């Protein structure tokens, strides 16, 4: 009987501990400042194609015909090419997004992120660079809670904020650009499409001219 009680207690403790880690208690003690949402331009990922990370074979960037070039250095990297459209009438843009698993990830601090850089170009006009990090913790949390409640490790149709525009968070900015957008700076935020998909993602730009 005592063994059974200990087992139940242990399982209850593991589940509680798991939920505790997911809820990021360290982050709750240091809440981020309130979010600014003014003067935004929004771009939506209409379609994309990508290569790398866990969805493809380990050697996605390697040369299968030449085992001497397995590109193991790139096994946690990803390349995406996308067509973006503004949510208001305007010209479409082409974008490349490079991302890699962040070396500073830490489950105890709810850090599960990828370092990313974007280059977005509008033909005959100019281009901008964005640099920052995508936080995938909310997706892990949602999928884990779904699994605990019997819904499978699934993200459903929810959209997830990968970044925010809060001042004081780590650098998440418009780095600069070329052409007519050479002097542009500011911040950006990204939210995924339904189900955490890249297609349907929204990029909110809070740009300023330097």
């Amino acid at each position, binding site marked *: 009987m*005592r063994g059974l*009680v*200990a*087992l*139940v*207690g*242990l399982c*209850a*403790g*593991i*589940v*509680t*501990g*798991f939920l*505790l*880690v997911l809820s990021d208690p360290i982050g709750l003690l240091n809440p981020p400042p309130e979010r600014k949402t003014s003067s935004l331009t929004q771009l939506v990922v*209409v*379609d994309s*194609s990508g290569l790398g990370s866990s969805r493809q074979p380990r050697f996605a*960037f*390697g*040369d299968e015909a030449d085992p001497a*070039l397995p*590109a193991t*250095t*790139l*096994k*946690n*990297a990803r*390349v995406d*090419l996308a*067509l973006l459209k503004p949510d208001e009438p305007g010209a*479409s*843009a*082409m974008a*490349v997004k*490079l*991302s*890699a*698993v962040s*070396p500073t*990830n830490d489950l105890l601090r709810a850090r599960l992120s990828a*370092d990313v*850089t974007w*280059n977005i*170009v*509008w*033909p*005959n006009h*100019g*281009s901008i*660079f964005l*640099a920052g990090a995508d936080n995938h913790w909310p997706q892990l949390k949602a999928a884990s809670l779904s699994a605990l409640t019997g819904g499978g490790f699934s993200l459903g149709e929810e959209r997830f904020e990968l970044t925010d525009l809060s001042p004081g968070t780590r*650098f998440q900015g418009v*780095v*600069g*650009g*070329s*052409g*007519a957008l050479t002097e542009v700076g500011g911040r950006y935020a990204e939210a995924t499409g339904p189900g955490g998909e890249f297609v349907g993602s929204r990029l909110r730009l809070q740009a300023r001219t330097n």
Partner: protein
Amino acid sequence: MQRTFIFSFLAGIALSVVLAAVMPLPRHERIASSIEVLTNGGRSEEFIIRFPEDRIALPDVPSGLIVLDGGAAYGLAQANSAAGAELFRLRDVDDQIIGVASRISARTPSSRSPSVSNWMLMIPSRGSLVMTQQDSADVSPVRTTQGWTLPARRAPFWAAGSRYRITSGPEPGGQGRVLRGTAEFARLTGSYVETWERNSSSGSGEISGRIRLSTVLRGPQ
């Protein structure tokens, strides 16, 4: 009995926290970098891309974009102008693959150069560099009777020789500008030069060679 439950419950919580702390997360394999420290401050590092073998072909093409030269690049065409995107694996001077790179080139009316090119270099274990330059020749997609193509894929582009310095500004000395770095490259800025070197053309007319990106990076003054 109650004491047993509380003890095992606390042990369960502790076990979860310890598991979260020790669970192995993905780490990047790191290759020693080949950096030369400069006597007048800063550091130089050279990156190499071999073409065509380092070109990255995507599994499909996003709707609304075009394929250039059989998948060598991708583009977005609007009226008589197009922007081209090329994706590459990135190598160090010892020919080891260390990262991925993208190059976007386009004509922009506000620039005095024939075209403008942007580079993103991402070395997963070290960070990223974003760089921009004015080009010495138009290397953005051009329209031919066969459709949009990259000028460097055509033999006439190489008529002047087998070595081509592409960068012509905006930094003094005709060098490109390193706008920003992330992670280990954070707070570094500087300049760079992009040079294309042609090896030969095969029987099929495929041009091979390499792109050399020579960077000079400095910390905050």
